[in-house]
């Protein structure tokens, strides 16, 4: 018989989720207020989490923020994807050539997971964060995957999004996105300047496995190109060559393209998105 779930541990894990998701460090009283748990329960939960390095005091204050262990668990999870390691020299090369930030978003069900980032010298914001998850059509990086799905796959994707992230589904049929997808299919890679702050551009180049399925995208963002207003930006040939070489190497070595979570059916991967993504921003 399956043993009962430990209720005390559930309070601790609830507290952990809250502290990790918060944009600011939280006091003991604030955790108690937001979880509606008694003060003594929260006190014990935070002490247990702090002892195990799951949370820590923020800058020596009495408020709590995420500790190192959640980060180590994330790094472990990401490192299990062979692409997160094998793409690193390619990302470093692209970041060095462009001055922008290069990252790889690996397809995980109908989401993209940013599994490796190399910050460019011109990037001072570091917005592209390791471990970031997005529905395929909602971020500039994951559109490098979305644009190259088949029409049947996009239909399946739409059904999934409608069921699990209804607030985000309207965006799938936006005329601007349709135009970007058409243009990406023509060029072989996705490019946009819309919605990218500080007059920067963003590119996302699809990566395919031996069977031709899109499994990831290499994204470049930041002040990567000086672009005349009104003209469609294009990637320099030298950057494209780096991507094409990596793509050729991948097709020859299919162990690099396997996801450790390939045993989970696509529609069964349902992730909670950060609040700003759920709002569609």
């Amino acid at each position, binding site marked *: 018989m*399956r*043993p*009962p*779930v*430990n*209720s*005390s*541990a*559930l309070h*601790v*894990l609830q507290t*952990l*989720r809250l502290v*990790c*998701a918060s*944009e600011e460090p939280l006091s003991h009283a604030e955790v108690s207020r937001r979880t509606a748990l008694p003060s003594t329960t929260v006190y*014990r*939960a935070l002490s*247990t*989490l702090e002892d*195990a*390095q799951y949370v820590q005091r923020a800058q020596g204050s009495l408020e709590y*923020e*995420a500790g*190192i*262990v*959640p*980060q*180590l*668990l*994330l*790094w*472990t*999870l990401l*490192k*299990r994807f062979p692409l997160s*390691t094998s793409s*690193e020299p390619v990302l*470093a090369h692209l*970041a*060095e050539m462009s001055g922008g930030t290069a990252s790889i978003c690996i397809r*995980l069900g109908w989401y993209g997971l940013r599994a*490796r980032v*190399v*910050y460019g*010298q011109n990037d001072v914001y*570091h*917005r592209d*964060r*390791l*471990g*970031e*998850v997005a529905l395929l059509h909602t971020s500039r990086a994951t559109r490098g995957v979305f644009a190259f799905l088949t029409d049947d796959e996009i239909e399946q994707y739409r059904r999934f999004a409608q069921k699990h992230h209804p607030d985000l589904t309207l965006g799938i049929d936006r005329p601007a996105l349709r135009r970007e997808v058409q243009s990406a299919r023509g060029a072989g890679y996705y490019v946009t300047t819309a919605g990218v702050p500080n007059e920067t551009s963003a590119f996302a180049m699809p990566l395919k496995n031996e069977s031709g399925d899109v499994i990831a995208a290499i994204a470049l963002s930041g002040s990567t190109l000086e672009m005349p207003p009104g003209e469609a930006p294009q990637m320099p040939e030298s950057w494209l060559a780096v991507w094409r070489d990596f793509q050729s190497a991948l097709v020859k070595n299919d162990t690099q393209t396997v996801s*450790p*979570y390939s*045993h*989970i059916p696509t529609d069964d991967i349902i*992730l*909670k998105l*950060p609040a700003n993504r759920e709002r569609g921003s």
Partner: protein
Amino acid sequence: MARAQRDSDRDQNKATTRVLAVLSAFVSKLDGNYGVTELSEKLGMTKNMVYRAVTTLTDQGFLIRDASGTRYELGLRILELQNASTREPDLRGLCVPTMQEIYKLTGETVSLSVRRGDNVVFIDGVETHRPGTWRNQIGDYRPLHSVASSRAVLAFLPDAEIDDYIARKSPMKISTTEEVSAGDLWNAIRQIRVQGFARYQRAARPRMVSVAFPFWNSNGRVEGAIAVGGPQDRFDEVATRLLPQLQHVVAELNERTRLYPAAFSFFLEDSSRGAR
């Protein structure tokens, strides 16, 4: 509070600690999965305890059953514990608990250094209150051939890089009066590679000794070293007695630093090369 209630609370708390310990066991588990028996042996818990912890963690999505259906791996709910608005952890933050643990064990000064080009730079430390402390200024740097921390890094660079370094830096001064020859440095490097750590003893008075252990990043490159040292008359005995414990602590640190993505190292190595 009634005694029965206190006992119940204590039991609940222990069970919760076990749940977190089981989840933490998956840190650095790059081949993916654990069975209940394996976890019970690793953590020194009964299989029943592990099974209960695993049930709670799978219920919450932090663990899932792997493809075989009999073992457990990290679940995708781990991704919910990330937050783009918080500061990304740096290497120093990763090493602080280890520095404090080494200080608690030895009572001597501990330092943390990272490689930048042909030097190591001291970026943090814990200083002892005992007399005769070995002081390192934060931001101080030492050539790779010179002290325990820097040699612990140098020894684990590829041979060709070491030869290149020796050719460029010879004669290799250690102090105003001391030099090390290429032959002696290579002998020291071989010994460090066998031992896994570097020991250095100052030739000049006061006689100070330190031992330094290297750590690696996710690229498989040696990133820096953590060192502990003090006056020879009291430190030699401490270092000999505590060596297995120190090695264990540093091995645990390496499990963490080998996950460190080192998102900047490419540029820093490149720019420091220009600053030789």
